[in-house]
């Protein structure tokens, strides 16, 4: 079924930008690359484009495979394809790797043309606002004036919200999933622990580990384990692992419980493919995002110029981006009398639920997107 509805074999593309991009921090990137993928066909009027904004560890590879043998399709492959909820027979879908990423777009591991060495620690701290501005430049590059929809979960939902604020005339529909208008202190605290794990790893070298040919693996591993715990619900972990032992209790500190085995596997996998400098920047972008700041904390005021129609979705067991936080977005939209539909999906998987093909969740997306005019 999913094979039949797959977008098939895909290839990434690179957009090079020679114009300088001034970041929120005041730093300027004189030039940069954005790596992206597209699925479906852009219509003649260029009105059927949908932008997917990725979350903390996401990439531009949202759907499809790179080869017939490829075992790992894009991270939201269950959503995107011909006949899937985000139907590529109708929409032209774009996945982009954010600035500061480690999958091809200009980031800390990229070569700084001025020094001919990796940016490393000198790569600026990028924000959600910066990402959205760079995504708008990619839209210009592709000749897309207005997105039929911008879609994002978690940190991707923050970008979607920012799109509706920064470019109200360029976004018709905003699908904000498992997200929040800012992070709570507890949520930021998790990020700080993750960053501390990385930064205090002796092999971090202040962010310039590339020159030493090492990777702060220990830090990245711990950061990822911590993240994983918070993306799952207690119930989901209980159902998946419970207190199951791999063998018997050995009175040691080796892997004894199934849960430990899983965490270590995820940590190793992540540390082998993700860049530590990107990780600490992505978490910082999460921390900094708060569109209400400029309006004395009044999110409703921050959304005053928004014109997009919204679909906001949260998941009952998501404690990292809880339904209450989504309802803050909904309230601000209601205060502005904007069109908004809000679903609180009953799901056991915690924050990760937004990536799962839950039947009701996908029915919502399918139904909503089928009514989006292109």
């Amino acid at each position, binding site marked *: 079924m999913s094979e039949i509805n797959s977008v098939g074999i895909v290839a990434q593309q690179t957009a090079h930008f020679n114009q300088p991009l001034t970041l929120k921090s005041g730093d300027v990137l004189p030039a940069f690359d954005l790596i992206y993928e597209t699925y479906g066909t852009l219509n003649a009027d260029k009105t059927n484009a949908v932008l997917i904004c990725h979350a903390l560890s996401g990439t531009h590879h949202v759907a499809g495979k790179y080869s017939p043998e490829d075992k790992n399709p894009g991270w939201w492959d269950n959503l995107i394809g011909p006949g899937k909820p985000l139907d590529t027979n109708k929409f032209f879908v774009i996945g982009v790797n954010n600035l500061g990423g480690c999958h091809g777009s200009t980031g800390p591991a990229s070569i700084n043309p001025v020094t001919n060495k990796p940016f490393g620690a000198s790569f600026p701290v990028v924000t959600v606002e910066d990402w959205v501005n760079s995504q708008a430049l990619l839209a210009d590059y592709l000749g897309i004036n207005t997105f039929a929809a911008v879609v994002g979960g978690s940190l991707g939902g923050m970008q979607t919200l920012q799109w509706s604020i920064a470019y109200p005339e360029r976004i018709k529909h905003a699908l904000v999933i498992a997200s929040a208008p800012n992070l709570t202190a507890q949520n930021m605290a998790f990020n700080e622990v993750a960053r501390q794990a990385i930064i205090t790893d002796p092999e971090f070298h202040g962010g310039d580990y590339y020159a030493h040919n090492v990777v702060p693996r220990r830090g990245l591993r711990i950061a990822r384990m911590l993240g994983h715990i918070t993306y799952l619900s207690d119930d989901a972990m209980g159902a998946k692992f419970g207190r199951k032992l791999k063998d018997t209790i050995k009175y040691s500190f080796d892997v004894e419980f199934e849960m430990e085995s899983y965490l270590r596997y995820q940590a190793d996998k992540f540390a082998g493919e993700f860049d530590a400098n990107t990780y600490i920047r992505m978490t910082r972008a999460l921390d900094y995002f708060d569109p209400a700041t400029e309006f004395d904390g009044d999110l409703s005021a921050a959304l005053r110029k928004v014109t997009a129609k919204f679909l906001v979705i949260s998941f009952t067991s998501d404690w990292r981006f809880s339904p209450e936080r989504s*309802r803050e977005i*909904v*309230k601000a939209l*209601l*205060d502005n*009398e904007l*069109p*908004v*539909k*809000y*679903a*609180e999906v*009953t799901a056991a998987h915690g924050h990760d639920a937004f990536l799962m093909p839950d039947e*009701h969740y996908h*029915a*919502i997306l399918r*139904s*909503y997107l089928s*009514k989006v005019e292109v």
Partner: protein
Amino acid sequence: MSTDINHLYRQDFAIIAGWLGFGSKALDLGCGDGALLSYLQDGLEVKGYGVEKDDTNWLAAMQNDIDVIQMDLEAGLSEFEDNSFDTVILSQTLQAMHNTEAILQEMLRVGHEVIVTFPNFGYWRNRLQIITGNMPVSKDLPYEWYNTPNVHLCTIHDFDALCHQLNITVIERKVVTNGNDVSFMPNWFGNLAMYRLKRSN
């Protein structure tokens, strides 16, 4: 006598529509599949939002192009500011609410006006079933006592008394049976009570 459910609903809807201004802003609590809001949006260009807890109803409402918010009314209406709607509607849902007083107060806080409709437990057919020894089961009260979601059934007299006690002004009251106005002994002969309310002062 016609028992066409759509026909009955339209009578119900028409009375509610008559209490709303053209282009007004309405909030329908427990909006179900959004049939009432669709009717109001089509006929009166009402700017409407719905609130619905049930997944299936929520999805149906969304498919009917309703701006529908999934939340539990029992938790209050904290997403909605004071006086942010011209009219807040609770159509045939009051009897299933646990916290009856609280939702009435919340509706009066959020809306300039409030419309509440409920099946009149004092309707003679209900009384007859009780006299004969059974809990009423009918088209309007289609549940058995053991599976009913209705926890706070009341009569028109009961609701009048509650309005008085809570100092709520009744702007208008309509009592209908099968779509027809009932003015003679409404607590006996009316099966659907419809109230248009506002805060007193």
